[in-house]
């Protein structure tokens, strides 16, 4: 009997621990651990407006935070807020172009990174002129 009770306790513990992730029960900000709240802090203001799928996606991203390099952690923290503030169409456009980016050879990706840096070094007014379609 004791063996049965112990095994049942293990099962119930596992079920209880996973209850917050059950379907139909969106994770609320207050339910996140302090560590997770710290990682996802840049998007706290947007959390209430997210559906369950998006919240779970962000939790999954947050759970990978410790596996990132310091540079990747910095990238993530600095881009989260901008990403959630993009329109759905902008996010989909970025995903499509990222897929294209993944399809090109690694050396071309590296060359494109360098081109991006060159483009960033252009004076702001010149970049504005290019965006306006003036290629003089």
């Amino acid at each position, binding site marked *: 009997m004791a063996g049965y009770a112990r095994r049942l306790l293990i099962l119930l513990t596992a079920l209880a621990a996973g209850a917050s992730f059950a379907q139909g029960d969106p994770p609320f900000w207050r339910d996140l651990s302090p560590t997770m709240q710290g990682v996802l802090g840049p998007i706290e203001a947007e959390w209430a407006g997210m559906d369950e799928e998006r919240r779970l996606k962000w939790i999954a991203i947050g759970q990978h935070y410790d596996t990132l390099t310091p540079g990747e952690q910095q990238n993530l923290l600095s881009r989260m807020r901008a990403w959630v503030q993009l329109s759905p169409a902008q996010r989909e456009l970025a995903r499509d172009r990222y897929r294209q980016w993944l399809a090109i050879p690694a050396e071309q990706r590296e060359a494109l990174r360098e081109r*991006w840096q060159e483009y960033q070094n252009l004076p702001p007014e010149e970049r504005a002129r290019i965006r306006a379609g003036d290629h003089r």
Partner: protein
Amino acid sequence: MNAADLDRLARRVARRLDRGGLSPHQERRLSEARGRALDRFADGRDWRRWWQRLAVPALPAALAAVLLAVLLLPDAGNDLPPQSVAEAQPFRLDYGLLVDDLPIDAYLDEGFRQWLDTRADS
């Protein structure tokens, strides 16, 4: 695996869970396994039948074996950004965009694309 082996396995899982200190990736996979177990549990309409099934001693031990497998199986690389289009599932796409060297603006800045086209033509 006989009942005694399953019992020992369940004890190992309990000790491992009590000890804590799981990596974020292990915690995520454990949560997913728990979620799947909950989904299967919730799918049953006859609760009495489910309770009877749970009462079978082998079932909790089998679940414990699954949980242990989740903890111990080697990482399949799911925590990495996609390296190819074939790997580019929705979650991994967003993850890659957020951590990649190239900022998101590079994908959305139409001026950058025009500038690249101009350079390619010249």
